[in-house]
């Protein structure tokens, strides 16, 4: 069979796309599993309930290098009942851990804002651990136009 230049180019481009896509897909799945694992480590194996915690993130982030993000948890913040810590995870980053906020009753309110990096469009997860051991979770998808991991 005679292979034309056009066919040869098409074939090699297809092969390259396949090679590029393969590890990419694999990594994405591994990260979701890693996120789940980190979540379970943080909660001590407890499945988090929804509610109480609010994660505020932009729907579309133009620049993945600085994505403003706010978490706030409803709590009295007294010595008897307060939010111990809140962890932030991003399932599409090279490493899903983002930050862990540790609160005390002296915080007054369990609210914190920071700026984070997002490599690509992905889910951001916030999990709160209360002083009585209960855990709450909120999740937001953030669409990223330009990734923020120096790629």
């Amino acid at each position, binding site marked *: 069979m005679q292979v034309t230049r056009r066919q040869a180019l098409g074939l090699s481009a297809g092969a390259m796309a396949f090679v590029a896509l393969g590890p990419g897909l694999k990594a994405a799945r591994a990260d979701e599993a890693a996120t789940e694992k980190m979540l379970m480590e943080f909660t001590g194996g407890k499945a988090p309930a929804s509610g109480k915690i609010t994660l505020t993130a932009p729907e579309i982030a133009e620049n993945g*290098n600085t994505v403003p993000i706010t978490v706030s948890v409803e709590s009295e913040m007294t010595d008897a009942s307060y939010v111990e810590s809140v962890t932030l995870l991003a399932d599409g980053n090279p490493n899903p851990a983002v*930050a862990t906020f*540790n609160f005390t009753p002296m915080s007054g309110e369990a*609210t914190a804002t920071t*700026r984070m990096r997002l490599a690509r469009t992905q889910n951001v997860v916030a999990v709160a651990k209360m002083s009585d051991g209960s855990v709450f979770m909120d999740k937001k998808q953030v669409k990223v136009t330009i990734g923020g991991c120096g790629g």
Partner: protein
Amino acid sequence: MAAPKPRVKVPKSAAAGEVITIKTLISHTMESGQRKDSSGNVIPRQIINKFTCEFNGKPVFSCDIEPAISANPYFEFTAKVMESGTFTFAWADDNGETYTHEQAIEVK
């Protein structure tokens, strides 16, 4: 890299029991350890890995930081003040250094 410079915004005075908002920022590149230089070598990770805020020696807020926090890490959080005193802020760098900043508040 220039020496990291902390910038902190705390109200000068507050009423007893008031919940105040504190804003902090420190200039730091937060090198993630994911980037490569022009010859393809990985640039080693150097980030601020821990931020703490204390009031009169008691912990108020702290944060364990991963490379996914942006350059010039910014934190905004709240504190409940019952008495006059001093807030102490500390940022721990991967290179072992700690940058600190103090700010007093007067409670009326």
